[in-house]
């Protein structure tokens, strides 16, 4: 499938993000450009305050840029209003957060079903059951988040991220709240599912070891990409 590989699923051109602070404004992202091809895995690394989480937010359509263009699977994110971006997220995007962000009012299974239901998928429950089995929690489907350990909660979050078969998965420090043993398992699970679903993965992390599992590593500092290491030579 080389032609698929060559297609850019994320295109970022001259992206700038400014925020107003007190009397002046702060440029968090300073003219960022890069592309990501379909099915690739890419890690964004950098020190705290380098702008990596802001970049992730913009790529996922959680926020809008001050200037520049972002295309997500062909859709011009920078031209969409908030509701359109929300609709796009429910169709094409999955998320994994450092703090899991499960809804405490829902059971594990219900949490997994949630995005599918929001996207209007009919067999949400069936899909959720398949996924909960894959992440090894089928025995605990009716447990509430506060009855699960951190590692288990993140497994639920991973299953939830894949239920809509998203084209792109955004993960923000997915192992940040876990011990190394659990972190490794979670990372493994995430990459396995990613491969299985042919999902494009955008991962933000401090953890260079985790980043090195990805095909590309973008290093950020002070709102700029200062290094781009690619496993394949055909990446720009």
């Amino acid at each position: 499938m080389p032609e698929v590989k060559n297609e850019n699923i994320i295109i970022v051109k001259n992206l700038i993000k400014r925020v107003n602070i007190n009397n002046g404004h702060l440029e968090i992202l300073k003219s960022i450009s890069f592309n990501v091809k379909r099915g690739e895995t890419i890690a964004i690394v950098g020190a705290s305050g380098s702008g990596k989480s802001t970049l992730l937010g913009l790529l996922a359509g959680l926020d809008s840029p001050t200037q520049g263009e972002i295309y997500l699977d062909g859709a011009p994110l920078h031209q969409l209003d908030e509701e359109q971006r929300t609709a796009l997220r429910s169709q094409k995007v999955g998320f994994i957060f450092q703090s899991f962000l499960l809804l405490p009012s829902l059971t594990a299974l219900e949490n997994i079903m949630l995005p599918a239901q929001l996207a209007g998928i009919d067999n949400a429950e069936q899909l959720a059951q398949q996924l909960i089995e894959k992440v090894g929690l089928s025995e605990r489907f009716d447990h509430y988040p506060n009855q699960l350990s951190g590692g288990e909660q993140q497994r639920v979050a991973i299953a939830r991220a894949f239920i809509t078969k998203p084209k792109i998965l955004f993960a923000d420090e997915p192992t940040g709240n876990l011990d190394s043993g659990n972190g490794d398992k979670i990372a493994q699970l995430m990459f396995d599912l990613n491969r299985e679903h042919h999902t494009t993965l955008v991962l933000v992390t401090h953890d260079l070891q985790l980043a090195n599992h990805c095909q590309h590593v973008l290093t950020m500092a002070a709102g700029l990409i200062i290094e781009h290491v690619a496993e394949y030579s055909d990446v720009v």
Partner: protein
Amino acid sequence: MWFKPANSMLRQQVKRGELTIFILAIILAVSSVFSLSGFGERLNQALVQKSNDFLAADRILSSAHPLPKALLQQSSEFQLQQAHYLSFNSVIFSDDEMVLTNTKAITGPYPLRGQLKISHQPLTAAPTDSQGDVTIGPPPRGEIWLAPELLVKLGISLGAKVAIGEQDFMVSGIITLEPDGSFNLFNLAPRVMINGEDVAATQVIQPGSRLSYSYLFSGEETQLQQFHQAIKPQLQSNQNWQDINNERSPIAGALARANRFLLLASLLGVILGATAIFVTASRFSQQQLDTVALLKTFGTNDRTIQKIFVWQLGTLITSGIIAGLIVGYGLQQGAFALVQHYLPDSIPQHLPAISAKAIIISVATGLICAVMFSLSPLVTLFKVPVMRVIKRDLAPSQFKGWLNGCIFGSAIFSLLYFYSRDLKLSAIILVVATLVSLTLAAMAALFIRLSRGKSFSAASPWRLAIASLNQRAVQSSMQIASIATAIMLMLIILLLRNEVIDEWQQQIPQGTANHFLANVTPEQVPEINHLMAQHQIVSSDLYPIIRGRVSAINQEKIGEYDSEANNDSDKKREGRRGFGRELSLTWRDSLPPKNPLVAGQWWQADDKEHLVSIEDGVAERLSIKLGDQLEILIGQEVISARVSSIRKVNWRSMSPNFFLIFNRAALGDMPSTFISSFYLPSDRHPLLDQLLRNYPTLSIIKIDRIIKKLRSIIDQVSLALTYIMLLVICASVLVLLVQVQASYQQRHQDLVILRTLGASKKLLKRAIAYEFLIIGGLAGFIATFTTEVALWLIQSYVIEMTWQPHPMLWIFATVAGALFVSIIGTRACKPLTELTPNQLIRNLS
């Protein structure tokens, strides 16, 4: 050492607006108590004073004998104003006619309250009470003032000469308005006024004459009470100290209810304020958990931590109380300015200096609320484990539910008692409050069980709403509880207000009899009935009146109870005393309207046995049971009758009422006159003159003034209630906001997740609206239940009204509760739903 960080922490919290509602709640509690204690007291004063017009004084000491001079002189020591009059029945003569009158011989500045109007010109037309000049004091010696009908009966006009006993008088005025105009149906002689110093010259006062001395007093309430205490030991059993409240009059009843009602309503406002304080205090301590855990980690000892937070709370409470007093003063001023034209002139038109009592009550309310209700959250806060810095979800061990309940309950009870000084009322409210919490706990548990098993679909805002309620099951039920309390209080006040006013208005609906007709002879009955029909005048039946006294109960002579040698208990003697006096008796074939039977049965018109129906109060006082035999002395004749029924009598109704009603067999043959009541609009008053001219022996008693006054009291009370309603609504909104604020953090996190996962704004807004709809609807529904219970208790035991169910209320309260809560709730959550996902995430972290 601890002061600086405590101060800066507090300043930060105040700046972020986190404590605004806590302070607002204290301000609300303090300002409502403060403004009510001023405004309510003043309104009450106005009510009492208006009503005192009916006595022509603040207090009356009535006596069958003249009072000793020394006793009267004491009144000046208490700076009381004083006047008195002697009243007696006497015959007045003109050249051709003579009429039995009731003479009032006045000494001093009568009336002390209300208005006496005397016209020195012939009357032009009805209504009469708009004519004449306001007058204080008796007529000059040798002059006499007459009731208008006397001029007709005697066939004279102003300037004519009349005689009472041995003394001639010149008719110099017509009495058009008499503040304490006799409302005694059975003292039907028209009024005459002369100067007290002319009494001796008439020589009508002989040993054995029936005289009534009335000593009128007015002045400061406290001084009146002190004076009463001072003379009490010297009073004889036939001397009676009266104020408007121990009068058996519609006004007294209305007044007593109005008072209780105002008190109740303001109490409820305070409870709401207290609820808001409790919730905000809990939230405050919840927010401080991390800070306390962190302080403990740094090695700060418990004492210092306690100092920091006690100081912080103390500062908040103090500033809340001070602000509350200022706001309350403003409210009081504003409310007073609004109602000023309703108040009688005798109430000072400017507000007096703030009374120390009002300040003490308000500050104490603020303190009790704030201290008692923040106690358990604060103690919980101090118990937070240090490990929380590492494991964020570690919470301090909570107070036991029952302990919390006890603290809350005793705080509410002490507030209630402190404010009302009425154990029964306080207990009723507390019972209802407990009932509400228990009902709510049960409902919440049921609700959680019902909704858990349901399959979940996030696509539906209803499901999201239910899940959200479920997630915060405990909080949700607390939320429902306090909102239900707020709704309940609003409903109670609204319904009671309407019902109190309704009942009053039913008592005096449009067309209520405003005249009594008396002294109708049996021969006149058909003619008068015909006349009434001809002029389409609505009137009660004509009741025969026979004067008689009860001489024995079951052959036991009543008179004996008054003898000193009697060994019966004081209570029994007290009860029977006075019943041996002459009473107005009547007979009827049918049960009069508004006289429900409580025991026995009404007789058949053709019953041959002598039967009597007795009023329930008298029956109880005299221990008279069904089947007892009463002996009645009428003139020289003794009639014996068996008690066949016991009736309730609404003494406040404007129609003829009787202690004893006999059947036709018992009294049908007795000579009698008849009385009736009827309604005549003021523009048809000339008809009265015609009636009097045609039937000069008739007596007509006007009671429109009483009715007018009742209406004005009702208006004033409605006004006060509207004010209190506004306060309670403010308090309810505050409680709701507090509750929404308390769930803010959790909501925030949910919104972040849902927004990120692609839930549309519309879906989330709807889910929030539905959640509040459910909370409000459920709260409204439960509130209706508890309101019905509370109303039943209050109406049965506190204000003595008949309770009725309100079927429409269930629907109304549920819908209104749902709408009210969802509007306020969605409005309060708007900032959250308007944020972009990224802002949400940032705020969350």
